[in-house]
């Protein structure tokens, strides 16, 4: 394959990873605050359908994207209410919402299924688009893909370089200590869950207004992206930059599946389509290995030197979730 075609293909990878970046970074923010929002899959489908419908109705893509964010925020508000105030199981409500929003999106989207709609246009950036290699790869995308680059940078800056970002990291790590420092833990958790949900809600319109424009119901190919985003949040260690790489890696696998199809005629196309999903989720095994109890007790029994070396390796590879993730916070 020629270099040019390769670059175009890879640029497409970056574009198709855009929604995953938004969803996974949004979820990372929510989880850093200590809440798990398992509704992601349904949320994205609903926001994709809703934003497309809004765009069709108003003719404005901008309004469509806003609608997507609003839907994401609304669904996450339910998760927040249930988890923080009503203290119900985060897994249960997240899962129910994942199913419910999915069905809602198919049902409400039925009338607009298959309709052609506006889509985002390519907006190559002047000067930047002509840089060799980086130009065609990064700077000949649509607006929302540029937003995804920006999101990664902004999220990273927020988490690591600002005061409120520090508090965010403390919320999920040790809410009692954050409370001791004056943070209103419950209010902040509401805020970050809804904000993270709004960001994830933008993943929907990025898909239905750009990558695979329109709403095609069950064949939409969007189903499952939410679960992958959740896995990538973990795989990326809750850090925006690593998450972005995880998302690009996943999109690359998907693209490879399509590209390598002719070379593997015996393998049905659906298999190659599905293959990246379990691959990503099974990498969780790899990054989680250090947390397992038997590994810890095995480590304890090793002599000093190999123990240090192995511990160092595991620490580099391993991801440790925010320590208080999923546990409700009680003031006393």
């Amino acid at each position: 394959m020629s270099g040019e075609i390769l670059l175009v293909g890879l640029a497409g990878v970056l574009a198709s990873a855009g929604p995953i970046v938004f969803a996974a970074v949004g979820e990372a923010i929510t989880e850093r605050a200590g809440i798990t929002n398992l509704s992601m899959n349904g949320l994205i489908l609903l926001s994709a359908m809703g934003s497309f419908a809004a765009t069709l109705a108003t003719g404005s893509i901008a309004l469509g994207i806003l609608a997507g964010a609003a839907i994401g925020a609304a669904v996450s508000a339910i998760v927040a209410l249930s988890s923080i105030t009503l203290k119900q199981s985060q897994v249960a409500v997240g899962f129910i919402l994942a199913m419910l929003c999915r069905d809602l999106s198919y049902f409400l989207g039925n009338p607009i299924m298959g309709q052609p709609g506006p889509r985002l246009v390519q907006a190559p950036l002047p000067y930047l688009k002509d840089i060799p290699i980086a130009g065609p790869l990064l700077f000949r995308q649509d607006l929302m893909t540029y937003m995804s680059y920006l999101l990664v940078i902004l999220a990273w800056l927020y988490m690591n370089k600002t005061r409120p970002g520090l508090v965010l990291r403390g919320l999920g790590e040790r809410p009692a200590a954050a409370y001791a420092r004056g943070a209103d833990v419950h209010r902040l958790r509401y805020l970050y869950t809804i904000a993270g949900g709004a960001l994830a809600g933008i993943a929907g319109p990025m898909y239905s207004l750009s990558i695979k424009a329109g709403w095609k119901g069950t064949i939409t190919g969007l189903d499952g992206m939410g679960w992958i985003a959740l896995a990538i949040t973990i795989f990326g260690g809750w850090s925006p930059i690593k998450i972005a790489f995880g998302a690009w890696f996943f999109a690359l696998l998907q693209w490879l599946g399509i590209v390598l199809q002719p070379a593997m005629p015996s393998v049905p196309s659906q298999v190659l389509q599905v293959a990246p999903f379990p691959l990503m989720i099974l990498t969780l095994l790899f990054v989680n290995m250090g947390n397992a109890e038997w590994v810890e007790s095995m480590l304890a029994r090793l002599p000093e030197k190999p123990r240090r070396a192995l511990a160092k390796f595991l620490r580099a590879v391993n991801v440790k979730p925010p320590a208080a993730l999923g546990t409700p916070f009680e003031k006393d």
Partner: protein
Amino acid sequence: MSESRPIKALFQVGAVVLALGITVLVLLATGAPPFAALGSIAKGAVGNLNVASDVVVAWVPLLLVTAGLLATFTVGLWNIGIEGQITLGAIFATWALRSFEGGAVSPGLALVLAFAAGAAGGAVWAMLVGALKTFGGVNEIFGGLGLNYVATALNIWLIFGPWKRPGVASMSGTVPFDKAYWLPTVSEQSRLAPAAVAVAIAGIALIFALVQGTYFGLRLKAVGKNPKAAYLLGIPTWQYMIVSFAICGALAGLAGAIQVSAVYHRLIPSISSGYGYLGLMVAMLVNYSAALAAPVALFFAALNVGSIQLPIIHKLDSSLSGVLQGTLVLFVILGDGLRKRLMGKGRSGS
């Protein structure tokens, strides 16, 4: 005070009313006549004998799956991988039937062996999730999800690869089995197999007896409610977790085997049909009580079957049943939390 029966019932009825209300709103949003649509669902489920028997056909795998999930929920596990376990059961059963087709084994025995194979396949797949959790530290939600995808991929590969129809591979699945190997149904046209119903009822009865009446079930409960205390009382906790996965997987595998042998008579790409996820919802709705599982599963099956007509009659998507089911479970859970918060405030702090 917050645990009193009338108060609980009040909140639950409130949840049902709210769920119906939201569904009506959703219907209005699409411009459809709400009550006519709901009426169509009802008619589509119990209107005539054919659809009623279809409801029972849908009830069978749902009930089996729910029963299995009660075992894992008792131990406090989220077996989201249940979909894949149904698929693996279907695959193993298909493999068994294909191996025995036309051979020396009688069709009756072949079917029994296929069921056993299905149960085994589901159990193995479920224990894999358990192993990933116990030894790999992988949360069973993501392990289950991943294995769901692997199961789907495996299924599709088989249908389009080694087991494909001669000539061109087709989305309609593998070559249908010889009629002799079809699970006997009530009549030629019906897909309702009494044997399947018996298996489903046996399944829920087994789980009920297991959880309520056996030492094993009591130990499972202890592990689910307080693993530390359970360990001190002498219960080997992680072994019990793996066994509960196996039980759930076996029942899910049986559901898959039934789908293959009684309903579709072949392996199709979407053999698990979302019964796994639906079973999770049923289990949550009945608050993990085995006694209520059968009627609620029947209700959910009725909603699913009843909605099939919606696209034809009202030009609505059949996912309306999912909307009803989802809002119902959601409001029951939210209502439960609200009740505890409103009524429980009277208790003194420690």
